[in-house]
């Protein structure tokens, strides 16, 4: 099977080679003699600008008026001309190694201590609130209740400091609440904005037409209703709509999410977060979770902290709360919570790495801070 290698022309077959030869001959002939029959294309019109001739003196005068632009060639510096970077020479004095203390001088005659004052500084520390101002010395002594048996030596530094008054320092940012009108007794009638009432009719109704609308004859009064037997009829069965069971199954299966989204449910809607999304958040918070200042006891506490996040992916600090904790005492739990909260706030300052289109999935977050791998073993 194959295609015929030629074209039938008047019953004779002309081979492809012959056709090609004819074509080439025609082309060569046209190139040689074709120019005779063709007019030369007009040359492109050159636009000529009118110029004024000026003399050399005028030119030099113009040059002198024009601002001079001096372009200085960049100065090429050889590498050897570069100044060596200044290096701060180390101090002449050698630094003693950290683990080797300065050689101890040979002690001269070390006499017995001349009854040194070995007690802690001669100080009685009275801890008191700054307001009212500290009373004078004799008043302080008067405050100290003497023991009944023997005078107790005054503490040099009071063991337990007293609390200051409630700190007066506070943020000078004054929160201003939105102005709200005072509620009145009478319910305020809602002002409904409405559009202009519709025209009664866009069509002009003539009397003649109006006549047509009028009833042509009066309705006859209805006859007296016949007494009817009261028979309790069963309620009419609602007519079942003709529903395709296949369609119903499909709609039931597929509309589950939409139906539940309308009812309040803890299940967030929208596209789910990927493992990568969650990992990004986890890594971000990990980098801010500093357990270096935690007590050894607090490093054994696992806390679950919940908070809400705004659409700008920043945490709402006022929503940060301790949900649960395991291990440790109350103080340790508080320390662990504070450390976790600090991590959330600090990491969230510039927003968490969360996808905008999945807001519904991360608007509420619960983070379990588990220092198991960080704690001292």
């Amino acid at each position: 099977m194959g295609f015929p290698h030629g074209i039938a022309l008047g019953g004779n077959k002309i081979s492809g080679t012959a056709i090609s030869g004819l074509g080439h001959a025609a082309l060569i002939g046209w190139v040689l003699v074709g120019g005779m029959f063709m007019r030369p294309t007009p040359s492109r019109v050159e636009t000529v600008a009118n110029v004024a001739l000026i003399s050399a003196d005028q030119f030099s005068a113009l040059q002198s008026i024009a601002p001079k632009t001096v372009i200085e060639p960049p100065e090429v510096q050889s590498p050897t001309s570069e100044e060596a970077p200044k290096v701060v020479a180390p101090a002449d004095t050698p630094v003693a190694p950290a683990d080797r203390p300065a050689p101890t001088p040979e002690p001269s005659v070390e006499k017995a201590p001349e009854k040194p004052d070995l007690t802690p500084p001669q100080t009685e520390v009275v801890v008191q609130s700054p307001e009212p101002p500290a009373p004078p010395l004799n008043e302080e002594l008067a405050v100290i209740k003497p023991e009944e048996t023997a005078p107790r030596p005054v503490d040099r530094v009071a063991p337990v400091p007293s609390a200051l008054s409630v700190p007066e320092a506070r943020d000078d940012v004054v929160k201003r609440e939105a102005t709200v009108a005072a509620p009145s007794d009478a319910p305020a009638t809602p002002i409904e904005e409405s559009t202009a009432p519709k025209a009664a009719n866009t069509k002009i109704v003539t009397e003649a037409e109006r006549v047509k609308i009028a009833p042509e004859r009066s309705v006859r009064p209805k006859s007296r209703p016949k007494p009817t037997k009261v028979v309790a009829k069963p309620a009419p069965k609602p007519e079942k709509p003709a529903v395709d069971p296949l369609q119903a199954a499909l709609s039931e299966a597929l509309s589950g999410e939409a139906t539940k989204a309308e009812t309040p449910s803890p299940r967030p809607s929208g596209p789910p977060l990927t493992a990568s999304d969650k990992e990004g958040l986890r890594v971000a918070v990990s980098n801010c979770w500093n357990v270096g200042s935690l007590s050894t006891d607090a490093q054994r506490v696992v806390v679950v902290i919940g908070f809400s996040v705004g659409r700008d992916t920043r945490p709402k600090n006022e929503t940060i709360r301790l949900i649960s904790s395991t291990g440790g005492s109350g103080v340790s739990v508080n320390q662990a919570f504070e450390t976790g909260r600090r991590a959330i706030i600090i990491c969230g300052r510039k927003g968490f790495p969360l996808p905008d289109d999945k807001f519904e999935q991360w608007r509420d977050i619960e983070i379990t801070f588990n220092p198991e791998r960080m704690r001292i073993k």
Partner: protein
Amino acid sequence: MKMRLIARTLILALTLGPLNLTTAQAQTGPLRIEVTDGVIEPLPIAVPTFVAENAAAAQLAEEISRVVVADLVGSGLFREIPREAHIAKITSFDAAVRYADWKAINAQGLVTGAVSVQGKRVIVKFRLFDVFSDKPLGDGLQFTGSTDAWRRMAHKVSDAAYGRITGEGPYFDSRVVFVSESGPKDLRQKRLAIMDYDGANVQYLTDSTSIVLGPRFSPTGDRVLYTSYESGSPRIYALDVASASRRVLNNQAATLSFSPRFGPDGDAVVFSLAKAGNTDIYTMSVRGGAQTRLTSSPSIDTDPSYSPDGSQIVFESDRSGNQQIYVMPAGGGEPKRISFGAGRYGTPVWSPRGDYIAFTKQNKGRFHIGVMRVDGSEERLLTSSFLDEGPTWAPNGRVIMFSRETSGATGTSSLYSVDLTGRNLKRVPTPLGASDPAWSPLQK
């Protein structure tokens, strides 16, 4: 036809139902993640110079705030943000704190204070702020004392700030008694000295005419037990810190007594007594009286230390062939060995929190300071050097001080401290060589 429809419905319901269920189970409620890897870094804090509330307080205000910074940073748990970086300036103790300015320099804690001097009295006030919570951390406090107690007041400020942020107990307002050393190794002169925990205010308790060893504080910090060769052989002395007066505790003939340590009640003293070539552990009252023998073995039992509740004693013994650590009831009884690692273990000290036992370990020519649980588990070595020995606990049970000696004929001994985590190893400055430290309880 109807049957086919029902069948198709069932198949579809079975196919799509689980899909719907899977979607629902993908996430219910809030997004939940678990963070297990954090960072361990010092917490950045800002300590602006305390406000001098009168002209006389200017110098003290600067010095007190410097001590507070040194305490907090020296603990290894905090990092100071240099004052040059502060945006806000604290010019009044009661002025409003501009949290935004401190957040901008990433200060997570802020300590503000004020100092006023009235004659010989000084008043120090301070407040601590949690910058990222926009609120004070606890109430403000105020200390009043004499001007020469300013360092103690600074330490108290540091203790309060440290405790509130970390949850650990305080330890800055404490002292250390140690053996001050001078002279060459083969002719070393030793005497007892006492200083603040940070090396300040060194004062000497004894002269250097005789060798002294192993000072130990009483639970109230007002007395010190130590061993002296004053009489030619080791004897235990009890020294009153305030008056530097002392008395020998055990003068029994033909015996050597050493390694004393107070019991938690401040009355019982546990110590080693060598008699007829055998060393055992005994106890007696610090007021004198009869001695009670707690161990009875042909081995050397020494370096006893009470548990904080006074119910047990940990000590070292070579009864197994080499030095190991044992625990026994405070009234005596069958000791239980708790160290089983390679090498030799000695100088065990019970933590004031009761959770760990610190020890010295010698293994493969190196000395280590380590800790283990009271049952011997979770052994961790915190240091390693030519010679580390003699650990002592800070009052909060978080920091350990010990002595380290360098090698060679000119080697000297110094004091070092290390965090329980093994971090923040640092030298404690002393004017001369130092060894055998013992940390006091918190000062009253």
